[in-house]
């Protein structure tokens, strides 16, 4: 009796989790489905008929493609700057403790516990009250670096916690100059963490809407273009571009999973050989 009840409970939980995954994929399914739609009016929201036209001509909406290009440039620049700044902070924080490190930890967490709309509007008041830069490309890059630095510093710090820093001393003892030590010992050690943080920072930047909205002036990024377009018309090319990004990331995930399985298999083979 008890075991039957617990088995039903187990099944129920699995079914609930399955439904949770369906819920997560519901809008994604519609985005992909409607990329094959031939909309009647301006809004691509009612299913009409199947077409491949949108996929054959994904870049026909020149304003959309231009906005995507602006977004890529902003995110690339902001990610490079924030990855360097954030990784340097993480390097400083992850070695020996030093005076003032608790204040710096607090300063790093604060942007994460502040709503985006506060970050965006407060930065806009700063730019409003000066005359050196106008709202545009530069102010958006500045804004993105501001919120990325915390993410990069915290991510890199979490990834390099517990590293054996005596390797650096060993290099120094063997006569390596500080730059050579960094180039051949420290940098290769921290590189995976830095790359993971850069990827995260780029993803956050390219999809940022609220902070960008307050600081963009007349510069139009990809999210801003979608926002502006959504009031007048929603072209199906938006769905095509979104689906492309989606399939690209699924491909990356599958490649990663297959490689992971293969290395597991190789390890298992080596183990059995050693026996």
């Amino acid at each position, binding site marked *: 009796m008890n075991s039957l009840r617990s088995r039903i409970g187990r099944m129920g939980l699995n079914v609930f989790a399955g439904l949770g995954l369906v819920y997560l994929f519901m809008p994604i399914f519609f985005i992909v489905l409607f990329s094959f739609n031939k909309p009647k009016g301006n809004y691509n929201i009612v299913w009409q008929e199947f077409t491949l036209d949108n996929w054959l001509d994904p870049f026909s909406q020149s304003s959309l493609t231009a906005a995507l290009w602006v977004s890529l440039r902003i995110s690339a620049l902001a990610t490079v700057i924030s990855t360097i700044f954030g990784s340097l902070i993480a390097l400083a924080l992850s070695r020996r403790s030093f005076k003032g490190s608790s204040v710096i930890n607090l300063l790093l967490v604060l942007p994460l516990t502040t709503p*985006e709309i506060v970050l965006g*509007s407060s930065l806009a008041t700063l730019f409003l009250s000066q005359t050196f830069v106008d709202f545009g490309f530069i102010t958006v890059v500045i804004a993105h670096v501001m919120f990325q630095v915390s993410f990069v510093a915290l991510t890199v710090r979490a990834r390099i916690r517990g590293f054996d820093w005596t390797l650096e001393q060993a290099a120094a003892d063997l006569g390596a100059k500080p730059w050579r030590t960094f180039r051949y010992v420290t940098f290769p050690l921290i590189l995976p963490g830095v790359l993971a943080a850069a990827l995260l920072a780029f993803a956050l930047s390219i999809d940022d809407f609220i902070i960008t909205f307050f600081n963009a002036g007349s510069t139009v990024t990809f999210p801003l273009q979608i926002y502006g377009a959504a009031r007048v018309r929603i072209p199906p090319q938006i769905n095509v571009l979104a689906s492309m990004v989606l399939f690209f990331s699924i491909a990356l995930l599958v490649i990663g999973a297959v490689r992971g399985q293969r290395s597991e298999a190789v390890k298992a083979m080596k183990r059995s050989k050693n026996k």
Partner: protein
Amino acid sequence: MLARRADNLGLAALAVAAVCLVALGAGWFDGPLNALVLLVLLVVLGGVGVLAAFGGPEARRLLAPYGLMKPGLLWMALFFLAPVWSLVRISLSTKESRFSVQYNFTWAWDNYSRAFSDFGGQFQRAFLYSLIATLLTIVIGYPVAYVIAFRGGRFKNLLLGLVVIPFFTSYLIRTIAWSTILADQGPIVSLLNTFGLVNVFEWLHIMENGKLLNTPAAVIGGLTYNFLPFMLLPIYVSLEKIDPNLVNAANDLYSTPTAAFRKVVFPLSVPGVFAGTLLTFIPAAGDFVNAQFLGNPNTTMIGNSIQDQFLKQNNYPVASAMSTVLMVSITALVLLYTRFFGTEELA
């Protein structure tokens, strides 16, 4: 002597430089005094540079962490701390005249009374909607995270990837997709009509006048969907760390599965729920995208009002006052919350 105290000097130089940048950015002084502040900034930074160059290896070792942190922290001083100061300053300012762009600091507290009297409903809705959405993300996210962590087996990473993939598409496109799904001609409303469930949903206050889109429920649903991974992933991380032997031990000691969950698994996953709650509630409370695409004029949240007053009405003082109130109340809530649950998991 100087070399042995290099860490104190490095810290002091960093602090002074940060204060100088905040002063310059937030406009504490005007005219020639700004030049003086800039001079102090350059002298301090130059002084540390000279110390590092001529102070010997011991001084360089002590100065190194401050040197590494300098660019990032000074950036944050100028573009995060100084803006907060100027936000508060503008929230207490008044326009010189109706068409002027100049703002004078006058301790204008009536900006705040206007923020509360005109936009009190938006504040209430922002906190109520994001509270409900946060609870819903726990209800949906916890079981999914649990099943992946304990029953995922070798598919764990694949399942986790499946959870994350929907969020690779743009935030706005996801929200617009929901407005398609919930629309009057959309699949859900027609399904409900076919099965005659509309009355039940109206009785539950999920639908209004036969509509699903443009209701409070749609806004809360959108917030729940968009912030679900911020709840699910921290819970997964904390569940994944739990040693399965602990659960086995509980079972060996004749604990029922429910008791084992309640007394062993759940307490160990509390840090994940705690971090997830902050990561969900904070962005949800300031959001205006969901309310705009999925709501109606009576479901606007404080984010909509700040955005409207700031970017459309150009009423910077009142918009800044609302922003400041949102920032202060969220900070107060976070502090209160961390007092109850501890702070280690935050970072």
